[in-house]
Structures are given as C-alpha cells and as structure tokens.
C-alpha cells in the first residue's frame, strides 16, 4: 500500500470498516421445503400443510409443462416452429408461482413462462403459434390476467409496476378482502437483472410501494453468459439496494417456490409493497432451439443439475408417502401423450395468417395512408391471381 499524497488516510483491510460490507451478510439463504432427494424439510415461517391433491396437482402440472416443452422442441426440429424457448428444468419455479397467483392477480411474463401460462389457462397452442410465427401472441391478456410474452428483455417489469399502481388506484390493495386484494407478478431472468428498465422498475415499485412480486428465475445463464457476469453477489440481494426485501428460494422445489411466492403475493396484496423472489434454478435445456450450449457450458454441470430435477424429487416424495401410485403416474403420462398429440396436430394444422392481416390493428382505426397501402397491396396480390 502506498501513501500517495500528504495526509492520506491509513486505509487497507481496515477500511472494510469504513465502507461497510459489499453485500448483505447473512440473511436467509436458499429456502427449501423438499430436498433433491425428495425429503420434506420444514421452515418455521412457511409452515404449509400441502394436501395430497395439491401435491399431485403440482406433479401433473410439471409433467404436462415439460411435455409442452418437449413437443415444442420437437416441432421446431421438424420445421413447424421458427424457434422455441426451452424451459427444461424450470418447471417447479413456474408451477410454484403459477399456482400461487390468484385469479385477480396479473402476471407479466417474459418469453419463457410456458408453465405459468399453463396454470393461467392459456392454451399452449397459442404459445406455439407465437414461436411458429402466425401471431405475436394470440391470447386475451384480460381473459387470463396473463400478459403477452415480451421479447425485449426487462421491458415488462415496468409495465408490471404501472399495472400495480393502477391496482392501488382501483382500491384493490390492502382492503383485507380476500379474492379482491390483488397483486402483480413481474417475471424476468438473471440476465435481465442488468437492464436499466428492470432496475427502474425496482425504483418505481419501492417509491410507490406497489404490489409487485419480482420473480427472477435465475437459471444461471443468459444465453452464453454465466450469472457472474451480471452480479457478483446473490441476485436476491439486489432488492436491498432499493429498500425492499429479497429472498432466494430453491427454484427446483415446487413446494418452496409455491410457499414463498404465495407469501410474497399476499404481502403485496396487503399493501406491504414489493418483494424480490429469486428462484434459483438451472436451464437444463438450451437457451432456445437455435442455441448451442456445448460452446460455453460443461456437460458435467448439466449432469449435476439432472440430479436436482424438480419433477423427480416430487415423484419420490409422492411415492414414498404413498400419495401417488402407478395408476396416477400412468394417468398423467397418458394425459401428457394426449396433450402432445393435440399440440402436434394443432400446430401443423395452424394456418398461416392472411397476408392482409399485416395492415390490421396497427391502430384502433386505419389512417387513410395505410388504407391506401393496404388496398394497393390487395390489388397487387390480385394480379397474381392463382399464383399465390
């Protein structure tokens, strides 16, 4: 250490004292209710008695969600989809929160929330339609309280906060009336946490104490970039810099994810403001079907994470307790097969949009210039007669 100017302070390791810590020390670490081995562990503040039915429901949701992913991946390989964003490994995180949100809550997804969409009742074929290129999103957000997929990383987190501010103004926050009090979920990834928009959404949510749960699926990769590129401390601690709580939950543990997000949502509905929930998980699939993860990650990592498979651990737990028998598993498997068949057929049968759709719904009305463009193009197409 060099004293570089007269009167320079004596700094060095002691200065840790002056500057304080560079991250929140201690605090709760990974919350888990079900170990990778399928053992139920208990948490003093998250003491949920899950019913057998609920547990089987989680299992079914996860299996079907995975099947959607597998079918879609296969359909992309067969040229039926332009691209597909895979979620293999993230089923527990998505079903956990997907089952914790209530009908009156509103969800702002990224482009990968297939499991949450499933829980909200959106037909998976609609998701496929987007990746096939027949629409930019063909479900009614208001019907499912589930927004359209957002491709621009992080943009939706601000929409979520604004929507939550709207709920505050509508008087549906903190009234104490169950089924009325509402909250918003803002989905985003670990990579997204670096975007200005996402951090601004933290600022606004804190400033207005908006009823938002920031749900970050930290799958440890943003395409080829490891989480360390985005943050050198656990991501959930980001929230502390903005003045609201953050927590890390085992995103491969559907019980823990459910319990934590449900509590965070309730906190929001009650008017206690935003919470950051980091679901620590792993992207076993590729980033998308056009990605080649062998270029940047170790296959041994994938192997390690296979041992933490979210579905497997719940199966073990269900079996060990006798809450699901071979019949149940066979039935879910059959359901998955049916779903798969429906998706395959439905996807292939999906017609291309009429080219004239290009001109529709740009605005609430159609301005004269656009009308002209449309009519001219229609006339132009007509010149080809049968050719098209």
């Amino acid at each position, binding site marked *: 250490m060099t004293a570089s100017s007269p009167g320079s302070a004596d700094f060095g390791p002691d200065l840790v004292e002056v500057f304080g810590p560079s991250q929140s020390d201690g605090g709760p670490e990974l919350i888990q209710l079900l170990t990778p081995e399928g053992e139920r562990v208990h948490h003093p503040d998250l003491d949920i008695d899950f019913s057998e039915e609920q547990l089987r429901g989680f299992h079914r949701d996860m299996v079907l969600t995975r099947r959607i992913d597998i079918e879609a991946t296969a359909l992309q390989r067969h040229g039926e989809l332009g691209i597909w964003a895979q979620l293999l490994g993230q089923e527990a995180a998505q079903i956990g929160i997907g089952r914790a949100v209530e009908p009156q809550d509103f969800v702002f997804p990224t482009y990968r929330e297939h499991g949450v969409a499933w829980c909200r009742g959106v037909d998976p074929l609609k998701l496929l339609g987007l990746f096939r290129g027949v*629409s*930019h*999103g*063909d479900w*009614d*957000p*208001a019907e499912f309280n589930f*927004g*359209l997929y957002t491709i*621009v990383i992080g*943009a939706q*987190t*601000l*929409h*979520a*906060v*604004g*929507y*939550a*501010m*709207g*709920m*505050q*103004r*509508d008087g549906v926050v903190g009234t104490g009336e169950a089924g009325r009090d509402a909250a918003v979920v803002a989905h985003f990834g670990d990579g997204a946490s670096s975007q*200005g*928009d996402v951090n*601004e*959404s933290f*600022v*606004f949510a804190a*400033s207005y104490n908006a009823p938002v749960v920031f749900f970050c699926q930290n799958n440890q990769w943003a395409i080829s970039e490891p989480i360390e590129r985005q943050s050198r401390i656990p991501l959930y601690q980001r929230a502390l810099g903005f003045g609201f709580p953050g927590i890390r939950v085992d995103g491969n543990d559907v019980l823990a994810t459910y319990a934590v997000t449900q509590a965070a949502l309730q906190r929001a509905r009650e008017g206690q403001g935003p919470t950051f929930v980091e679901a620590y998980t792993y992207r076993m699939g590729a980033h998308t079907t056009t990605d080649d993860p062998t270029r940047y990650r170790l296959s041994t990592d994938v192997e390690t994470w296979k041992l933490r498979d979210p579905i497997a651990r719940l199966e073990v737990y269900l079996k060990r307790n006798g809450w699901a028998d071979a019949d149940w598993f066979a039935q879910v498997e059959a359901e998955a097969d049916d779903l798969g068949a429906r998706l395959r057929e439905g996807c292939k049968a999906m017609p291309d949009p009429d080219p004239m759709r290009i001109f*529709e*719904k*740009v*605005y*609430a*009305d159609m*301005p*004269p*210039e*656009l009308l002209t463009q449309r009519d001219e193009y229609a006339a132009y197409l007509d010149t080809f007669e049968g050719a098209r």
Partner: protein
Amino acid sequence: MSRITLAKGLNAGLRKAMEDDDKVLVMGEDVGKLGGVFRITDGLQKDFGEDRVIDSPLAESGIVGTAIGLALRGYRPVVEIQFDGFVYPAYDQIVCQVAKMHYRSQGRYRLPMVIRIPFGGGIGAVEHHSESPEAQFAHTPGLKVVACSNPVDGYWMIQQAIEHPDPVIFLEPKRQYHADKAELDESVAPEPLFTSRIVRPGQDVTLLGYGPTVKTCLRAAEAAANEGRSLEVIDLRTLSPLDMGPVLDSVRRTGRAVVVHEAHVNLGMGAELAARVTEQCFYSLEAPVLRVGGFDTPYPPARIEEDFLPDLDRVLDAVDRSIAF
C-alpha cells in the same frame, strides 16, 4: 371567451380532460407541486391529488413503462417528458412497446396514452433542450404524432389526444408557451385531431409548417405579401398520419411547396412530404419541393441558434428559389 397563452391553453385542456374522465392521470418529473418546469400542469396536483398527478422518479423509461402498465389497467396516462432531448431514455419503451402493443395483441391491448413533449429551440438553453425528435416517432408505425402551434389548438388538441384510443406523441412548441395570446371561444367546435389546416390562403407557393414554424411561415407570408407575393400557409398539425388532402390540393393550385421545420433536414418530415407531394402532384409541380430546416449538425450553442433555426428570411429565400427554379 378569454385570451390565453399556449401554456394556459394546455393547462386548461388538461384540467378539462381530468374533470371529464377520472381515469386521466398526469405523470412525469416535477409535474406536481412545481407544475412542471414550464408550468403546464400548474395547479393540477392541488386539485386532483397525488394519485392523479404523479411526480415520478427521475427515469424516463420508467415513466413511460409504468404509464403503459397504467394504461393496460384502464387508465389514460398523460406523460410529460421534461424536454425533447430527454425522451431518448424512453425511446425503447415508446417504439417497441407503446407503438407495438396494439398490433402485437391484435387490438386486445389498448394504449390510450399521451406523451407530451415540449420541443424545438429558440429559448437560449444548454444542450438537449432544443431538439426536434418528431421524425423518429413519425417513422414508427403504431404511434400517432401531432404538433400544436397556437393556444386554441393547444386547448383542444390535448383533450382530443387524451380521448383518442391510440397512443399519441404530443409535441408542444416550447418557444411559444408564453409568447402570443389568442382568444379561446369554447363555443366554437374544434376541428378533428388528425387534420391539417390552411391558416393563410395564397396562390403562389405553399408553405408547410407545424409547431413553432407555423408562426415563422405566417410571418414570411406577411412579408411576402408586402412584395406582392401570395403564400399559402398550412399548419400540418398532424405528422403521423399525415393529412395529405389539404396539402395536395394546395400544391396542385400553387405548383410549388416549401416545407419548414426545425428538425434536421436530412430525413426530416420535409423529406417525406417532398416524396409524397412529388409522387402525387408530379405534373403540377413547377419546382421541386424545397426544404428549410435545422442543418444536419447537432444543435449548436444557444448564441448561434437563431442561425441554425429556420427564420423568415430563410423561408423567403427558399420561396425565391422555388419561384426562380
């Protein structure tokens, strides 16, 4: 009937809109107690409360992004961007979200929001306070872009924009905020929002202006009249969609057109107007459509901004060139 400035017209229009529809919200930096740096929202927070007149954190993307969320929840946010040069942090939210949500959702998402931007120069300010970003928004399908030029239009157009179901970029010529007064007669119904208007009829050359340059054009026309030249002045009012009807009619009559704006000439509104007018009045044109605008340089230091900005003389010079062509 009362004589009002543009600032007052906008303020009164906002107030009216907030009274008429309690879903209308005003958001932005300093719009509350301060009433905005130009006082356009003066008194609104006092009367409508902090829930409807929302002072935001200092983050334009955040302002527009949360306004989108509020609109999705059924509100009609009117966002104030403090100065033209500060709209760019929100550019992504505007062009990728505001502009595309209606299309993306096949009309299921409605975004009835207004983004108010004080624009243009001539106020002696430091950098970034005198920009004219309209072409960038007009180039983006899904946005509608209008510019008011006078107090009466300010009063009506802001209300019409707020009522309109599509997102509207609403440009206000800041140099005019506290300049001229005009008589507001509320009993006279306003023209529709997306229409252009002949503000001074003439025969020899058509001048096309909007926002701050309408005044410049009118002054040029007056000066030209003294020299026996008759210039027709059109206040475009709407930049996207353009209202080509009055423009083409006029040019077919005069055979000559000069577009005047403060934005850079290169790829400014003048380029589009020139292209369309030429395509649609090819055989009526006696001269090419000429463009008078800010030069293709960044906005200069304020002490030489009047050289950068189109003024009466540069407009008349273009008129001369058009006639002499």
